């Protein structure tokens, strides 16, 4: 019980200090790119191996790309109302509370 309370308090504290958490994350991002620029690349297997911050740009662009692709596929092709498979994909909540497993 004590541990539960302590963890909740810790998370609450982090939520309250959201601005500080954001600043720390931005600082870490800058640091990771800076270190990448300062440290000579260990590999030269691919053309992008020596480009500082390539992974950072790849991750950001990749994240936005994946979000765009899933939105396009979802709204353009595969989203259907929740009861589309009538009787098949019924509400997930029925009988859950009494589920033995």
């Amino acid at each position, binding site marked *: 019980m004590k541990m539960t309370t302590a*963890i*909740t308090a810790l998370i609450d504290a982090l939520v309250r200090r959201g601005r500080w958490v954001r600043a720390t994350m931005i600082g870490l991002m800058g640091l*990771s790119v800076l270190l990448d620029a300062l440290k000579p690349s*260990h590999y030269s297997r691919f053309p992008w191996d020596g480009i500082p911050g390539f*992974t950072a740009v790849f991750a950001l662009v990749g994240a936005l790309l994946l979000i765009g692709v899933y939105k396009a596929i979802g709204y353009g092709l595969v989203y259907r*109302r929740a009861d589309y498979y009538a009787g098949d994909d019924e509400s*997930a909540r029925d009988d859950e509370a009494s589920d*033995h497993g």
Partner: protein
Amino acid sequence: MGEWLHPALLLMLGALPLAVLQGRSRQIWQLVLPLLVLISVAALPAGLTLRLELAGLELVPLRVDKLSLAFAYVFALIIFIGNVFALQVDDGAQHVAAAFYAASGLGAVFAGDLITLYVFWEIMMIASVWLIWRRRRQAAYEAGFRYLIIHALGGMLLLAGIIAYWLNTGSLAFEALNGGGPAFYLILAAFLINAAAPPLHAWLPDAYPEATVTGTVFLSAFTTKTAVYVLARGFPGTELLVWLGVFMTLYGVIYAFLVNDIRRLLSYHIISQVGYMVAGVGLGSALAISGTTAHAFTHILYKALLLMGAGAVLQMTGRSRLTELGGLYRTMPVTFVLYMIGGLSISAFPLFSGFVSKTMIIEAAAVQGRGAIFLLMTLAGVGTFMSTTLKLPWYTFMGRDSGLRPPEAPLNMRVAMSIAALLCFVIGIVPEWLYSILPHPVDYQAYTAGHLIKEMQLLLFTGLGFFLLVGVLGGKDKISLDLDWFYRVPGRHALERLSAVIRGLDSGARQAFMARFQALERRATHLRLSGWPLKSWPTGSMALWTAVVLALLLVFGLGR
């Protein structure tokens, strides 16, 4: 002990009392039995082989080497963890099904011949479906049937492939299969169905979220990972698998974004993570096969942890949709923290298990100069971090307060999650132990400054992308059609039409028969009433018909 008792047999026989034991004695046996299995697996020396002669066929029910042992170790571990998680479940049938399912997984990885493999393959299918059906609701029942049909198809393909292979080679030994020929492709197709490779992958995200809370934990460990094992054993270096695996990594990631149910989201990530392993098998180098084995090992642990976390949420709230959850950290902080350890592990966060295994496969692609494969697998890692480690916990445990205030999960569930989390962490910081049990010697160093900087960049900037758009990334109260739509909608309609046609033909034939029968009956009645059979017949006519009857008897040999 291990030398005379197959671990699968030990587990199957040991599972039988679970059907009748009750209360504390059942719980104690649930803990003791997997420990005995773990000891029995640990006692097996690499190189041990058990041969049997059966109906003229040489069978090898036990073939122990480093590849099979690595899978068997983690199977034995997850049986224990899964049983701890399931201690509160008072359902003997479910426990027996889980044990038989796990035992068949062990039997498959120790199988040295294709017949033994086939037998355990089919037991796995039959036992596992009960983990879905024991949810005891209509959706689970129907999903279980679809699961059964797809796996029955896989079983038939495997049997056909084994027969073709035996006819071609005269051998039933389960070793690397040479490329080409119907046997090669039939067996490969069967293995890929169990690996949930598209296009026959939809059974997994269809059925796993419908299984019981504890059943899903077992399901996540055995079917797909046994498939990875048999692919690594039978098809190393098959180029097709490289691209199929990469496709799986991205397919799973994209669909994981699309779904609303947290266990379905994690199920799609099984496809994605198995994609890394399939690609690793396709790459085929010693580093790639060891990376595949290592990733299967870590994946079983962190995926079980993630599904235990999601299962705990379902168990305690009765809900599993992102749109209905939020803010649960207030009352389920332990579950949240343990889930996050699984999330950091699957995302290859340094210090956690995925970092020391997934990067091996990506490194194997890099060593072979496969730039496109390297980038696409890295991109899938971006998606994995976003949906499993950011989106799901954000909309379940943090974010909008749903107002739900469930108590923490039961102690045994938290203990099971803690064991899995501890293993994820220990493997992450001391990977040498994992590397020492891999099939090939590993010359790979995960913790270099370059790897750490790149990985931190990858994760931090992925996080930036997520939080820039977090407002539009929540779950949608919709379902996402997948390829199972083809057999659930047009397939069902086609079946219904075919059924209607058959019913029509049957009904028409019966009506025609009855009409003819009634006509005959009317004719017979008419004849009887008319007195025609009783009329006087000419002697010549009687002689003629007697001759006809005698001739017929002779022709058809009735006198023989």
